[in-house]
């Protein structure tokens, strides 16, 4: 084994001596790469799930760190009518008919049931810019009504035990299953990710088996454990000793550009209008300018969402009932009494959902934590509050730090992806609130002039404009020396 490595180490030099075409330099063959394992968690402590990562035949993968993130299914059923009854219009449901837990933690219109609550449909662009939608006046059967809204579980830290086995060597990377908090750190994606004490190489076609033992009850969703590092491209037919020698060369980090005088820091930005619909797929391409190559060194991201305030639309109430040829119900009429907003008081439980903006119902709303003690009576019922107070009592669930999505980045110039599968943002990029340091690529990624970075996003939670910034530098003039492929 040792001899092979030594022989392999000499080989690149011998090619040069013989006058053969130069072998690509490590800077051109090394690309940052992430291998992710996915685990479907059921929320049952003790449940064991496992996944296998298969290293591609393209080259050797060197893992330098581990990150993880949990794409939690936060939605829970929200039954509104417990007994069978006549069909009802969803917009006329009052807050008093919702369980207190839903008002405290938050609830929203089930994305699959939007056609029962609203009229018409919106394009993704319109949905991202929060265009208000017309409420539907169609009656909905009770069975469907119980599926029209869903309670949103707050984001909570997750706990599990995990173990990693290199299937190629049969070697375990820990003596017993380790706790995620002890070994990987917080589950909110706070950076820097846990770095391995020594980079770990995986040869082409090898496999890594990961096993997870659940510990958090009621945590349902997909757990991503990501090995991030770099791949040394060698070709599937490359002999193993050569591959090993290339990995050793690549381990000595090379600067893609030598002349710093023509290098300027630069950020390329990809933008996505997130609609808030889970499963919606978006794509953006960032073209690299012709004036020089670009080297990406780290990635940052953030969601620009609009205000969390919920402005109640009192003016919508009377026309709603007039359109239906009915008079405003008595309890609701109290809310519309003339007078200053801070003096007109009515029971909060009589407030119908139709006074809430449609965008807020889609985003999800809850009573602000600071107002919960005011909104509820000691017995759990809703209190009587003024119109002014009701207008400032609610907030949207669409917060930038809760954005959740899967991403896949590829270099269209070479046609290579940077991940083996779409990866959850927390697992691959880290916490969503912008805490530094940003996610640093294990090796800088070199893009040729005129090439493009393609980013594909699959939405899970959050609405607004998502910014994904490739931070790095640009080299003016000549193409980068290390980018020959």
């Amino acid at each position: 084994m040792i001899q092979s490595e030594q022989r392999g180490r000499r080989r690149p030099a011998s090619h040069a001596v013989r006058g053969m075409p130069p072998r690509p330099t490590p800077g051109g063959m090394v690309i940052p790469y992430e291998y992710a394992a996915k685990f479907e968690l059921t929320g049952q402590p003790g449940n064991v799930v496992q996944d296998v990562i298969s290293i591609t035949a393209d080259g050797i993968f060197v893992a330098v760190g581990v990150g993880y993130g949990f794409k939690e299914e936060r939605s829970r059923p929200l039954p509104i009518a417990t007994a069978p009854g006549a069909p009802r219009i969803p917009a006329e449901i009052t807050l008093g008919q919702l369980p207190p837990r839903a008002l405290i933690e938050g609830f929203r219109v089930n994305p699959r049931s939007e056609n029962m609550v609203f009229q018409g449909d919106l394009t993704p662009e319109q949905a991202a810019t929060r265009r208000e939608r017309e409420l539907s006046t169609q009656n909905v059967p009770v069975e469907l009504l119980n599926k029209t809204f869903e309670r949103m579980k707050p984001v909570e830290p997750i706990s599990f035990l995990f173990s990693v086995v290199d299937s190629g060597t049969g070697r375990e990377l820990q003596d017993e299953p380790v706790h995620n908090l002890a070994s990987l750190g917080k589950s909110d994606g706070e950076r820097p990710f846990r770095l391995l004490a020594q980079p770990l190489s995986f040869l082409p076609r090898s496999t890594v088996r990961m096993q997870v033992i659940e510990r958090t009850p009621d945590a349902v969703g997909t757990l991503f454990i990501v090995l991030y590092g770099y791949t040394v491209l060698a070709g599937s037919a490359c002999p193993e000793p050569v591959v090993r020698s290339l990995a050793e060369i690549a381990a000595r980090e090379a600067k893609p550009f030598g002349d710093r005088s023509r290098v300027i820091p630069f950020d390329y930005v990809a933008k996505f209008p997130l609609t808030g619909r889970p499963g919606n797929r978006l794509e953006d391409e960032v073209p690299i300018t012709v004036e020089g190559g670009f080297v990406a060194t780290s990635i940052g991201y953030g969601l620009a969402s609009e205000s969390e305030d919920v402005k109640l639309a009192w003016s919508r109430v009377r026309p709603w009932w007039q359109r239906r040829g009915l008079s405003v119900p008595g309890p609701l009429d109290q809310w519309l009494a003339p007078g200053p907003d801070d003096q007109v008081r009515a029971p909060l439980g009589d407030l119908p959902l139709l006074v809430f903006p449609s965008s807020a119902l889609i985003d999800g709303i809850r009573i602000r934590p600071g107002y919960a003690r005011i909104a509820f009576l000691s017995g759990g019922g809703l209190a009587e509050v003024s119109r002014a107070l009701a207008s400032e009592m609610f907030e949207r669930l669409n917060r930038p730090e809760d954005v959740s999505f899967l991403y896949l980045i590829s270099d269209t110039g070479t046609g290579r992806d940077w991940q083996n599968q779409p990866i959850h943002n927390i697992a691959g990029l880290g916490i969503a609130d912008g805490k530094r340091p940003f996610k640093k690529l294990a090796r800088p990624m070199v893009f040729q002039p005129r090439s493009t970075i393609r980013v594909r996003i699959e939405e899970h939670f959050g609405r607004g404009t998502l910014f994904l910034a490739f931070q790095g530098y640009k080299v003016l003039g000549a193409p980068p020396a290390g980018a020959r492929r």
Partner: protein
Amino acid sequence: MTLGAFAQGSRFRRALVERRAIPFDYAFRFKFFDEKHETRSFVDQTLSATLTVSIEASFTAVSIGYGLIPRLRRIPFGLAEEEDLEVTSQDTLENPPRLPTGAEAPRRVISLLDMLSIRAPTSVTALTFATVTAPTHRVGLLANLSSEARAALIENVPPRRIQLGEMINALGRALGEREFAARGEIGAKTAFALQYGIRANPKVFRSFLLRGGSTPLPGEELAELFETVEAPAERIQFLYALHDQGTGRAFQSEPLLNVAGLGIDDGDRPFRSFAPPITFDPQTVIRLDVIPKSEFKGELHVVLHGYKVLGEAGTPTGRKLRPRRRARRVARP
């Protein structure tokens, strides 16, 4: 080696540069408030600021940071209205007469009238009874006050006798949460202010100290004896774009969200560092455009951290080294 030759050497030059490299920060400042129109929104408006690198040396920026000085609007408050009084049923010697409406505020006024007629005036000063917002029946009740009672009400009271409950009531009124004060409850804004902090108003504090707290303050001073600040914005979001005006070069492909490009707004370090440092020549004009995307008020500071290298050729701090002279050879006769 002569001293002159040593000075020409590369080692010496390196040492000279290291010695003359001084850490330096250039800051952009943006004002996101309007003193004349406090409610003015700056969302989606582009604000630009430029700075010129000083002529004395080039500037190398190695990282960038930002922070917001929130415009904390001071809200003075103090005992000013009869609603501020902490009057409970225990304060009255007898049961207060009931009003047909059963409203809370009139009941308290009646309690107050009872106290005035029976007890000494309590902690109350400048009363503004005939307010427009006051219910008519309350105005009527208060209009029936005798001149002695009115005088007793307006008479100033020592600040030391102000109760915590009265401060909370006055604070709630100042923050627009009258309804909570009227019910003897604490509103959300009031709770936040109590948590965030209240203090003695510096404008009145001297007068308060001179009186030792035992002597009554004038009504208008008691009405502003304390102050608090409104809650700062929960979130700061803006797009930014950095340009070098000298070369016309931008440092990003399009305006970028602060969270994605600069990081969280609480100043959590390390700051965002530039992959290679940017060197700006002397007299270069750097422009920063900022487009707010969320509602916040205050002064935004965006700072380029780096260093200046003094003594470079072509700058006022540069020192020309005289070329080495050749030794003059004198021809021997």
